[in-house]
């Protein structure tokens, strides 16, 4: 056990939802990308986030992960305000993301990539490392064994010594998830995890997402593959033109008039606007 690691649910407030985004807005030089969007997620939920191109999915995603600064609104995570915190602080509080265009540390080995995920849970300092003190050596050993366990779970163990950039596409996607899981997240945000995958890889991903949820992690998925998204999500939030137009179970959303209008390109007034 590494000292200083936060135990799960330490500051948990029972009345609060795990994720509570309120009136989040973001505009880019006068172009409003996101306007007063709310998003509430329960602990342990899988939430799908969909919308046509330019709907603001990625903007919302980037606001929550900390890549963008919100113009206004708030984002309570477990009752604590996240807007204003740096990415590294959010990661240490348990929010982690993956990228649509995979971002690995290409020149590093597969195992080292996962060890980078543990980075934020480690505590030894520069001096301890430079003098090779026992504490630092113990922590490195812990990262190595935990990292191998995680790679084993994601069927990547045989590749542990390879450079990440030499992995196949599907393995790179899995490695990115492994690295994200190594940060011990409580909210995992997946940005188009099935992009570029074939059907069987997509099915595997589906099982994997469910397995991750079983381990107690809340998941937010942005995905273009409608089939996969509707199958895996407990609830779905639909964005269009920077605003939330629908939210509910996959079945509810699929029959929602506004959603159909948006996706089939009919005029909004057809849905009783």
């Amino acid at each position, binding site marked *: 056990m590494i000292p200083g690691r936060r135990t799960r649910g330490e500051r948990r407030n029972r009345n609060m939802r795990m994720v509570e985004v309120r009136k989040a807005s973001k505009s880019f030089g006068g172009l409003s990308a996101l306007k007063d969007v709310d998003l509430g997620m329960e602990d342990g939920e899988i939430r799908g986030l969909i919308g046509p191109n330019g709907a603001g999915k990625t903007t919302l995603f980037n606001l929550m992960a900390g890549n963008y600064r919100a113009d206004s609104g708030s984002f309570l995570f477990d009752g604590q305000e996240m807007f204003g915190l740096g990415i590294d602080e959010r990661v240490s509080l348990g929010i982690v993301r993956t990228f649509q265009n995979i971002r690995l540390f290409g020149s590093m080995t597969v195992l080292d990539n996962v060890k980078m995920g543990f980075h934020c849970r480690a505590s*030894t300092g520069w001096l301890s490392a430079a003098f090779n003190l026992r504490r630092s050596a113990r922590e490195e050993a812990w990262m190595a064994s935990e990292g191998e366990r995680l790679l084993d779970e994601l069927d990547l163990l045989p590749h542990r010594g390879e450079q990440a950039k030499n992995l196949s596409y599907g393995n790179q996607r899995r490695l990115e998830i492994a690295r994200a899981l190594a940060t011990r997240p409580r909210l995992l945000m997946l940005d188009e995890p099935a992009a570029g995958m074939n059907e069987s890889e997509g099915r595997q991903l589906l099982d994997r997402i469910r397995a991750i949820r079983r381990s107690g992690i809340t998941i937010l998925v942005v995905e273009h593959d409608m089939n996969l998204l509707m199958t895996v999500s407990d609830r779905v939030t639909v964005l269009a033109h920077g605003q939330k137009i629908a939210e509910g179970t996959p079945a509810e959303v699929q029959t929602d008039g506004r959603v159909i209008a948006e996706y089939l390109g009919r005029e909004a007034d057809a849905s009783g606007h």
Partner: protein
Amino acid sequence: MPGAVRRNPALVALPLAAILPFFVDNNYVFHILVVAGIYMVLSMSLNLLIGYTGLFSFGHAAFYGTGAYASALLSLGCGLPFPAAFLASGLLTAVFGVTVAFPALRLKTIFLAIATLGLNEIVRLFLTNLDDVTGGPAGLPGIPLPDLWLVRLEQPQDFYLAAIVFVTAAYWALSNLLLKRHGRALKAIRDDEIAAKAVGVNITSYKVAVFGISAFFAGLAGSFFAHYITYISPDSFGLSESFAIIAMVALGGMGDLRGSLIGAFLLCVIPEVFRSLHDFRELIYGFTIMLIVRMLPGGIAGWTRNPGGWLRRRRNDDSRPADPRREAES
């Protein structure tokens, strides 16, 4: 420790060099090797910035000179004994490195390179024009020889042994650092800054820290140099010095500490072995950088990992434009 030695043959090879005085009795040889030792520490510390973190710092002599002058002034002006002046100059240079890092980190790639080049000139001009403190262009003579409590370093041979301890200690500390999570974080920043951020690495604090550590070791090297030569002047810390160190890092291999040892050794020894080349030192450094960057981007260390790879890669590069059909198919 035994594990560290097994992973690091250099940790055996460096102390083994201490038997040389049993076979050689030539002050000139020891002088060259002491200088090589100083450059080994300098290129390892620069490699930390350029090779491991991808921060193109082109003004390393600024830190080297800061350390040298700090140590000289502390022992001449304040009468500090060598060990204290040595450590203090390292720490002062580290503080200077951290101070420089904050504005410098707003810049990337070539812009950082230009800014650090400028820094090098600023430091040199300060040293030249601050006559009252630094002695101006005439420099500081009469820096005391190191007194290490029981032993006093006087002959090049004494300094040779001290340099071995110095280089080995620096190599040991830096390789420990780089093998562990901090080293990985630096490489992660080099590979993909956005991804490094996404797994919780505080980019700014890491970059600032690595500037500080790099400056610390460069400062120690400067102090060692000052007390060895006993006379320093601003000329020793100009741009050509920075480029010499860059050439050593490039020749040895970016992102490989052992490579830096080899690169520094070769570029110190070669101009001495071929005495006739001595006047062309700077030309050699310039050509080294150009040739390495063009033909052997991984340096010597990269080449030993994949010998022959550079030939193959170049052939591929050349064949690509010659056969557009193949490119269209793939």
